[in-house]
């Protein structure tokens, strides 16, 4: 039995899994190709396409309801070093789920963590922040001030 991970470990794993899922699959492919030592691996679960039911709350905070589904793909891999990685990604790109699972496995490997963190996670995080900021700045340019027309007394 493996020791259960600490809250910090879970938090950092959640962060990288989020970044991997939200990055374009084509970028993950590039970074995979750039790896000096790609690991040998096998599938624990071949990529599988299915649906997630998306839930929301009435008024944003109230009664939970089912809004509608979205496509997703999941996958599990084990590297030659015995690290198990999971990929859960929106959409139907099986390669995206596979690469997300592979990087998840590598990031859990203490021998590879720092390298992958610097060469994969850091640029992807930066790119995501830039994309988000760009979109937000474009929206911010459409911010208006409405004035009500009041008659002078």
């Amino acid at each position, binding site marked *: 039995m493996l020791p259960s991970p600490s809250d910090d470990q879970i938090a950092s794993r959640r962060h990288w899994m989020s970044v991997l899922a939200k990055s374009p699959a084509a970028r993950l492919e590039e970074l995979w190709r750039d790896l000096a030592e790609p690991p040998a691996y096998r599938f624990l679960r071949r990529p599988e396409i299915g649906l997630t039911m998306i839930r929301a709350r009435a*008024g944003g905070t109230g*009664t939970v309801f089912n809004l509608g589904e979205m496509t*997703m793909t999941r996958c599990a891999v084990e590297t030659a070093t015995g690290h198990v990685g999971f990929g859960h990604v929106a959409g139907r790109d099986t390669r995206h789920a596979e690469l997300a699972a592979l990087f998840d496995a590598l990031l859990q490997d203490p021998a590879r963590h720092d390298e992958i963190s610097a060469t994969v996670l850091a640029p992807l995080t930066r790119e995501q922040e830039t994309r988000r900021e760009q979109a937000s700045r474009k929206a911010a340019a459409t911010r208006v001030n409405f004035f009500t027309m009041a008659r002078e007394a």
Partner: protein
Amino acid sequence: MYVAIKGGETAIDNAHALLAEKRRGNPAVPELSLTQISEQMALAVDRVMTEGSVYDRELAALAIKQARGDLVEAIFLLRAYRTTLPRLATSEPLDTAAMAVQRRISATFKDLPGGQVLGPTFDYTHRLLDFTLAANGQDVPTPEPADEPLSADLPRVAELLNQEGLIETAEDGEDGPVGDLTREPLTFPAGRDLRLQALARGDEGYLLALGYSTQRGYGNSHPFAGEIRMGEVTVEIVPEELGFPVEIGTVTVTECEMINQFKGSKTQPPQFTRGYGLAFGEAERKAMSMALVDRALRCRELGEEATVPAQDEEFVLSHADSVEAQGFVQHLKLPHYVDFQSELVLVRALRAEAEARAEQEKGSEEKE
């Protein structure tokens, strides 16, 4: 009564070949790609995802292409495809307060903390046909971004009213079972969870008309668009094998919080009440209509007398789904030969009877 019919295979095959040819249109005109549809017909894609109830831009674009642009047919195709996929997970409820906002407006407070953000809106356009779009290869203007991004903290309008206690609070829903129309059929009375799901999947035109009716006097709802926001929200699931929440991606949604005057009841003081609308993509008309109808359907819980069509839950929800509605209407064109044959026999017999009776009455009149 349905009776199997045979024959017509060749004619049906030929009809489908003809359909495929018509779908392609003039072969001299370049064929549309799915990315062209999802990029340039984005709001059609959004509508098909919302009412088809599957968020997947590429699948929705394919459905639109296959349906020759008939969005209700495309919604049907997407719903049908959905049934071939397993359900792998159920998400945590979306946190729309944490949305990466692209648009956010309020018709009730002009000085909203965080500001009014118009975003990519049709509002304030002159609705004049733009013939520069008719010429290909137009230069697209590049919007100048602001120096600073939007504030990460954009409080909900409902929260502002809540500080004065003038609006009903949406209690955190109990973690009870959440109804799912894709698993069990709708029964009445329906809880708000099922009503909202049915409205989210419901036909936009139908909800627009019902929402409009509440404004025109079939209902007394005095609505204000308290807040409309559109942008990306993160979808999070808790995979069994991990036991902690994992973000799998983002979806763009449009949210509308309608605020309605409420005179109060025996148990509740006068205050504002809320109607809620949420849809995939940029779907403001849909979200607003949904919010109006959601509020109208809350009459029972608020102790209001149900007197108008939009308050009639069974009527509203039973007819909201375009896939069911078009199926039942369009089945009328399928062969009903045996049905009709029996009606023909019946009408002939009734006609003969009526004629015989008229003849008899005429005879007795002549005798008098």
